[in-house]
């Protein structure tokens, strides 16, 4: 156990001691934040206004502060969703660097069991992701509560943290299956660049997936990260939406809230249908399980050539 703990601690130290790497692992989240400040917030509010403009009554009942709270949470969800992709990947580049620099030889020359080496990479990347996204979520919730318009109950918050943990584990498991294909850190770095650029779109951090065609939506929903983001959206944005819905006092029979849920993609979309949120959880866990099996198959024997 000491050996496994030592390996995991070493991997965590290697990641967190490299400040540049830590900042780069949040690159997409930073881009989402900057774009939000520049124009995304305006775009999301305009989307609301276009619905409100159709009905004068809605305009008087729905408060601007509630809309602001809703779109602020949209930002937090976008940042979390992308961080749950980029942080574990960046931490897992240690696997590639260790192979490239033959650090794995140094570990292989010790009595550490081979499965412990693989598991330590997995655990340290999942832990790094939990720590980073956990801090991001906590900071987001604190800022949001300080700003007012905080409509989350304990169950919502607990669910958000649970999704962060499951998201960290599933992303790490998925990335572990193909990290060994990168022979150099240059190659993994190039892939990270593409991943950073694409992840924001795939999870719908910039533009809600409802704006895309059915084919694109189905494709994006193949990625567990998209489902993770949808779950986070439900955990963190439902409160503000329900507040707006209760402001209407049931006069519209929930049509307004439903149209907002659809516009901002609160449901997973697979096989041509909108599915319930629990199907996202099942899908993410299933992909994580399959990834773990693949990981065992790929890594077994890899540390003795």
């Amino acid at each position, binding site marked *: 156990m000491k050996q496994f703990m*030592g390996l995991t601690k070493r991997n965590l*130290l290697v990641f967190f001691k490299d400040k540049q790497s830590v900042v780069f692992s949040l690159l997409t989240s930073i881009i989402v934040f900057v774009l939000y400040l520049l124009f995304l917030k305006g775009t999301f509010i305009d989307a609301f206004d276009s619905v409100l403009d159709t009905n004068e009554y809605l305009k008087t009942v729905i408060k601007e502060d509630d809309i602001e709270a809703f779109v602020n949470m949209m930002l937090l969800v976008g940042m979390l969703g992308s961080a749950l992709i980029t942080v574990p990947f960046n931490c897992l580049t240690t696997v590639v660097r260790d192979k490239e*620099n033959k650090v794995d030889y140094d570990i292989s*020359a*010790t*009595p550490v069991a081979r499965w412990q080496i693989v598991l330590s990479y997995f655990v340290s990347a999942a832990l790094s992701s939990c720590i980073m996204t956990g801090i991001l979520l906590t900071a987001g919730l604190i800022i949001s509560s300080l700003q007012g318009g905080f409509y989350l109950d304990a169950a919502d918050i607990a669910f958000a943290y649970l999704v962060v943990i499951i998201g960290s584990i599933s992303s790490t498991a998925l990335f572990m299956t193909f990290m060994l294909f990168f022979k150099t850190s240059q190659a993994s770095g190039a892939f990270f660049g593409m991943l950073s650029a694409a992840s924001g779109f795939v999870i719908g951090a910039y533009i809600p997936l409802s704006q895309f065609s059915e084919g694109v939506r189905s494709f994006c929903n193949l990625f567990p990260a998209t489902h993770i983001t949808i779950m986070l959206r439900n955990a963190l944005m439902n409160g503000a939406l329900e507040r707006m819905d209760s402001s209407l006092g049931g006069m519209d029979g929930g049509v307004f809230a439903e149209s907002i849920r659809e516009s901002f993609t609160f449901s997973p979309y697979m096989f041509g249908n909108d599915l319930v949120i629990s199907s996202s959880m099942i899908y993410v866990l299933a992909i994580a399980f399959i990834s773990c099996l693949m990981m065992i198959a790929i890594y077994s024997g890899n540390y*003795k050539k």
Partner: protein
Amino acid sequence: MDAINVRELSKSYKDVKAVKGISFDVHEGEFFAFLGENGAGKSTTINILSTILSKTSGDVKVFGHELGKDDNEIRALTGIVFQNSVLDDKLSVRENLYTRGSYYGFGKKETDRRLSGIRESFELDEIWNRRYEKLSGGQRRRVDIARALIHSPKILFLDEPTTGLDPKSRRIVWDHIDHLRKEKKLTIFLTTHYMEETAEADNVVIMDKGMVIANGSPSELKNRYSSSKLVWYTHRSQDAEALLGNMPHTYESDHYNISFKDSITEFLYANRNVITDYEVIKGSMDDVFLNLTGREMSV
């Protein structure tokens, strides 16, 4: 007691045969050197002996433990200093050594206890909290050797430990290795392509293209595969040529180069009145390698 016994060891990667049925023994406390060019199979052999790579065929025993069956016992008995540094740049010397200690199941206190002597003799205290990436080449090598000794191994593998170091750092590293060999009675297994580093070895194995081409002490190898040379400073003359007769010799600008397979002393004594300005150059390991392979050592 034998520290290592290797019999018919082979290692293949698909179509490439990196090691081709080599056999040798290393005795306990011996300074054993593996000499050969890059790609000769030295590092592959060392990596097999330290359980990092698996062998394709052959038998290897380390202090009686069979490779492939008793790997964990072998890992506890062997330490390795790799050709390139394998410690983490962003971590301090302390963090690097504590994490490596944990790989052997040592806690902080146990690592401290095991490192107490090493810290002093390797002068690590002054760089203890410094990041590994901030160290000079010589300092890094000192830390690398300390890391390899953390679990008190009985055999220390050194895979080209001085490659890329400046002469001063090389000297410092060698002083430390000498100390380990003489004071701690450690079995040293060195791979190198620097001929001069094998001079003090008890036994040298020369590898070429995955095969052992010669084996013996440096003096045995020199006697067997090189000749000493007499450099006689004189004008070229018929008398001198007559004196040298059938002996293999050449003339260069102001001196004769005369090769000797046997003792030079007798020849010099017999001609002490004629040959007054001279020097004797002993056969070197370079000559041994050249004579064995037909080419100069390339690195």
